[in-house]
């Protein structure tokens, strides 16, 4: 079948890669680019483990076909840190022990990133709504919500924004 040469910006870096139209963004990130921080969960848009930012908004990468990424900006969990320096959102997750098994964590972080980029002072309800598209089977969500509340406060101090 047809090959496709994709040009996109991934975590702030221009990328040109050979792929095929029927591959998803999730396939591209994990299998072609080796960015395995984004997780393969249900692959039907019902768990949020594959959440990334596409042009700054949270999407299920399992539901985006690669041709739709042409010319667009993608941010994955690997794009949150600056080198070795974790973002304040990631630090807050660590400080609040918001990652238990860690499988939902990349999806949670990316949904939280979208929220904080667009709403720097979210209410608890807004936080819960923002993460409602990612399922966590371990934590009961409490520590995740607390981490995001904390991160919102920290970010207002430092003005963090993810690369990409």
């Amino acid at each position, binding site marked *: *079948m*047809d090959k*496709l040469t994709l040009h996109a910006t991934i975590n702030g870096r221009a990328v040109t890669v050979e792929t*095929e*139209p*029927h*591959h*998803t963004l999730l396939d591209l990130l994990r299998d072609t680019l080796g960015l395995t921080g984004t997780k393969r969960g249900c*692959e*039907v*848009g*019902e*768990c*949020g483990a594959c*959440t990334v930012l*596409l042009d700054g*908004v*949270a*999407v*299920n990468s*399992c*539901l*985006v*076909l690669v*041709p*739709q990424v*042409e010319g667009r900006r993608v941010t994955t969990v690997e794009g949150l840190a600056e080198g070795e320096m974790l973002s304040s959102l990631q630090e807050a997750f660590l400080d609040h022990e918001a990652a238990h098994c860690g499988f939902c964590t990349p999806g949670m972080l990316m*949904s939280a990133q*979208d929220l904080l980029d667009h709403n720097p002072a979210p209410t608890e309800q807004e936080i819960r*709504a*923002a993460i*409602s*598209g*990612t*399922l966590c089977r371990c934590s009961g969500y409490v520590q995740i919500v607390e981490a995001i509340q904390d991160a919102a406060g920290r970010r207002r101090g430092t003005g963090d924004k993810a690369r990409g």
Partner: protein
Amino acid sequence: MRPFRYLACASVEEACAALRAHAGRARVLAGGTDLLLELRRGDGPAPEVMVDISRLEELRGIVAGNGTLRLGPLARHAELAASEPVRRRAGLLAAAAGAVGSPQVRNRGTVGGNVMNAATCADTVPPLVALGARLTLRSAGGSRELDIADFFERPYVTRARPDELLVAIEFPALPPCARSAFVKLGRRNALSIARLSVAAVVDRDASGRITDARIVPGAALPVWKRAREAEAMLVGQAPSEALFAAAGRRTAELMIGETGRRWSSEYKEPVLAVLVRRALEACC
């Protein structure tokens, strides 16, 4: 996922030409949130050609003017939920769009896709039926308009021809004092498919009597329609819990009449009645 040929369209004309040229073997790609699931399941014949309309600016947008609201089919659920004109003059639609799936799904899924996919559980369709929406379909041969209430043949099957593209959804804005609601019952509070839903509109006169009532159940009937007999019970009356409960029961009777008694009826019948009552109460 089975491979396919991919076609990025630069215009509606190109998309229509592609749909005509590949009659029946093409699928239209917009948000992809239903289509990719279908492709993964591998039901039915593999599409040969994927016609991507997602970059067509002319199919985007929410335009309010002259007492009507006009939606491009590519309007995303997140956009509808946040749109000030939709929230103000078609609140039930904003609520329904805000109830679809999850934030991630709402950032991709489109109202046009929700309508064309025609799943019985579609969230935006009951509000669009309550709003009396008209759909514009375009093909290489021209354009036509249909009332949304006449658009569905049966679950998952619309009356659009394979070479037609949905290009606009238009409806009269609700009167400024009318109230509306959308209630959805799913197995979770988010990330869930509607097991039952209700779209409702209630308008009242200065004395508080109901002058207009619209009730459209979702995930309940083979094709969507207004519960006319339940609505008629309300017009001219003052709102009350008993009245709304009775309208709810009448709506549930409509469902049983249309679908017959099914395995789910023992649950759905009383529950739909309650959801209708709650939707009407939310309008008063």
